[in-house]
Each structure stands twice: as C-alpha cells, then as structure tokens.
C-alpha cells in the first residue's frame, strides 16, 4: 500500500516536471529580480499584480487580468503576475492551478517569505493585504498603486489613463 502511494507520488511529480503550466513556466524570484521588475527603465507600461491561489478575491480578479492582457500590444503593456504562494506549495498548488485555469500570462513566484524585507520596496503604503496592483512606466514617471480588488472595466480604465 505504502509503496503504491509512493509510486503514484513519483508519477505525479514526474508529470508536473514534464508538463509545465499551460504554455509557460513559473519563474521563481527573490528581491533582486523583483527590484529589476520594479525599476525597469523601458518606455513600457507594466501592470504588476500581487496575488496567491490562497486568496479568493485574487483568484476572482485573475480572469480580468487574463482578458485585459490580451487587448494590448505586449510591447507597450506588459502584465506580470507575482504569486505569494508558499514556496513549499508551488508544485502541488500553484502550478496545477495555473494549468487548470489556463493562465497564459507570465507568472513569477516570490520565494522570499520574509515579507518585511521587500514589501516597502513595492510601495511603502502597502499593508500586506492582497490583491494589490501596481501600474507604472518608469520612463514616463507614471505610477499608481492600487490596494484591493479590481474589476475588468476598472483595470482597463486605469491602464488607459496612462496610454
């Protein structure tokens, strides 16, 4: 019995290894990579959403990001989802979730669980609640930090106000 469970586990693990999330892979990032995203000097609008599979309001707004991201030229507006899922649950929770929900946007997962070492770098006013969304174009000095849930028209409106 125990052997068969282990066998099933091995097969499951191999399956995940061989079939990464829907057409894209999850990038594991830490503070330097996060800062690189936040300080990107390109003349491009970045839409960065912090979320987690364990956060129901985040999961609710995910399809809005998915839909809106398809409406813009990726050279002009770049969407990045940064997951705060627990590092120990990437394989068994996050990746299956992305696959099941057919998420096509690029997903990074923050491997730094000492939140206080980086949360202020995103925005000093951020209290640690998710979802939050940061929209910026460093080249044009445009920036908005939105704590809380967004709906599809709200997200579109915010993006359009910068274009």
């Amino acid at each position, binding site marked *: 019995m125990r052997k068969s469970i282990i066998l099933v586990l091995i097969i499951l693990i191999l399956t995940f290894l061989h079939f990464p999330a829907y057409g894209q892979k999850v990038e594991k990032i830490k503070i330097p990579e996060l800062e690189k995203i936040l300080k990107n000097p390109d003349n491009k609008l970045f839409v960065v959403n912090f979320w987690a599979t*364990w*956060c129901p*309001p985040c999961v609710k707004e995910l399809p809005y990001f998915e839909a809106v991201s398809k409406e813009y030229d990726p050279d002009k507006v770049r969407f990045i989802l940064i997951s*705060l899922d*627990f*590092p*120990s649950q990437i394989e068994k929770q996050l990746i299956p979730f992305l696959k099941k929900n057919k998420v096509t946007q690029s997903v990074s997962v923050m491997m730094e*669980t*000492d*939140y*206080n*070492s980086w*949360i*202020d770098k995103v925005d000093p006013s*951020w*209290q*640690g*609640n*998710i979802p939050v969304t940061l929209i910026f174009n460093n080249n044009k000095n445009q920036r*908005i930090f*939105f704590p809380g849930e967004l709906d599809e028209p709200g997200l579109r*409106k*915010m993006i359009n*106000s*910068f274009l």
Partner: protein
Amino acid sequence: MKKLIFLLAGSLLVTVVATASGPFKAGDSATDFSLKNVNGKNVSLSQFDDAKGFIVVFSCNTCPMVKKYEERIIDLNKEFSSKGYPVVAINSNDSNVSPGDSYEGMQKLAKEKGYKFEYLYDESQEVAKQYGATNTPHVYVLSKKEGELKVEYVGAIDNNSDDASKADKKYVRDAVSALLKGEQAPVAGTKAVGCGIKWKKA
C-alpha cells in the same frame, strides 16, 4: 488621470475617516472590548486580573495564512499565558461574505484544535476597525500600564510564513520576552501579509 487620483484619494479619505481610532501602532493606547467567546460568554480584557498584557491576534477559521500560523499561535499561548501574556484571538470576518467564518465554525475549530485561549467573535467588526486590523493573522501585543492598555507591537508573528523552523525573526515572541524583562519590544511594527479581513458589504 488626475480624476482617477482624486477618486482614489477620496476613497482613501473615506476609509481613514471610517476607522478614525485606528490603526493602532506601538505607543498608542488600545481600547478594551466585550466580545462573545465560543462558549457564549462575553469577554473583556479587563477581566484578566493576572495578565500583564495580551497577544491579540486577529484571526479566522478559513485563511490559509492563519492555518500556516495556527500551531505557532497555540505555542505562543502555551509559552506566555502562564507568564501573564495570554493569546486572545478575534474573528472579525463577515460570515455572509465568508460562510466558513461563522460563529459555529469558530466553535468547531476551537474544539478541534483544542484552543486554550479565548477565541472571540467580532460580529459588528467594530474591534477590527478600532484596532485598524487589515489582515489575518494580524497581531497586536498589548501591555497593561497604569490601568491602561498600551500597544507595544503590531504586525506579523515572525518572518517566515511558510516554514516556522526557518523563521529567524520571531517578532511577537521577541516583543513579549522583552516586555517580561521590563524592556521595550525590539521591533515596534512589521507588515503582516495575509487574507484581507472580509468586511460586510455596504
């Protein structure tokens, strides 16, 4: 764009006004409350005659971040209640928005997990608003000083939500240990990542 900023600033202002007494930070005086525990009895902090202070934890039944920290909350109570700093957990989530956070759910959880500390129901959400709690778990370490409740630390339990054994900054534990020695909490506040409190729909 300008309009949007005004709109956002406006909504922020409304939030600030609505929670005029919070958010509490270290150095502030905290308010007492009277909330129903899982045995149907009303509990206030003033009833704890022997307490030197409290570890007030805004918690709930459902949040995965609370689940991650649940054993650590139980351990904090085990370690510090006998020394005068009991854990007092409060569930402020609206059960219409989050059905798993009902009073009955609290009773079930407290029984299942063998909570040795009070688990209180903030049905009106007034206490969470007064304290300025935003997430679960969100901790307020309070001390009793000259008949008043003083806020000593606000924030996260430690610096590794995923793995307790890898946490090398145990904020709450360090704060209470310092207070017991007559010292100040080494860190006055951190940010607590967690599930947003499920506020009632207006």
